[in-house]
């Protein structure tokens, strides 16, 4: 069940902050059509925006494009955000993944580093591939009227705590 994608939507936008909102609008339109709840749509918007913002901030030296692929299944949506820019050391980043440590003095807080953690918290399954550029694959299940349940797949590729 739900093994074959029903629909595929693709988008390519310049890796500029001003286009992240456009992607967010499109994703919210798709999720709305699929039947996600208001809260799930908001979660999807944030996760996709975080992935796109990472491309804007980290992928390219001289500008490039953000690729967004969206597979709609019967019971889930899978969104791939990819770039052709530089890769990064996943295990280094994974080690630092987590929420803010409230026991630390304010002076030591970092202003960044919450993006991947949020993606991992808001989506059901997250995978990051980074051979040429970075591709982050994010899945969120459709919970129809709380009737259909699913096992929350714990991501193999990130170790952040689920909220």
């Amino acid at each position, binding site marked *: 069940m739900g093994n074959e994608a029903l629909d595929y939507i693709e988008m390519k936008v310049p890796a500029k*902050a001003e286009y*992240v909102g456009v992607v967010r609008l499109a994703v919210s339109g798709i999720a709305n059509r699929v039947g996600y709840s208001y809260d799930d749509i908001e979660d999807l918007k944030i996760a996709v925006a975080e992935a796109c913002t990472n491309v*804007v901030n980290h992928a390219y030296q001289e500008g490039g494009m953000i690729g967004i692929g969206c597979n709609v299944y019967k019971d889930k949506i899978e969104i791939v955000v990819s770039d052709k820019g530089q890769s990064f050391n996943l295990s280094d980043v994974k080690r630092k993944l987590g*929420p803010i440590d409230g026991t630390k003095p304010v002076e030591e807080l970092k202003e960044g580093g919450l993006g991947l953690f949020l993606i991992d918290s808001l989506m059901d399954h997250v995978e990051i591939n980074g051979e040429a550029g970075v591709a982050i694959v994010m899945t969120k299940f459709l919970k129809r009227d709380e009737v259909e349940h699913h096992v929350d797949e714990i991501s193999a590729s990130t170790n952040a705590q689920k909220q």
Partner: protein
Amino acid sequence: MDLDIRKENKKDFSILYVGGEIDAYTAPQLKEELLPMTENEGDKILVDLKGVDYIDSTGLGIFIGALKSAKSHNSTIELTGLNSRVKRLFSITGLDEVINIDNEKREEAK
């Protein structure tokens, strides 16, 4: 899709009203208004987020930066008017444990 920002000086404190979507594109606008406010020695700043319907990590980062700046200038910063979505993001990220969030202040801020 720009932010809607308005500043108000009360007797004992300043209020920054923010409306719109705080993301990577709009966060610089927020930073530009908020950061200078935290640099006034001893000031009390109330940020009213009633009009904010979207925030992501870039926006949260602005508040972390403001908090650090406030700390080093002996000013204080407090947030109010967060809707449940926005509040949820502050709590998922643990930011609600380092920054003052007071929803009771909502009435005062009007």
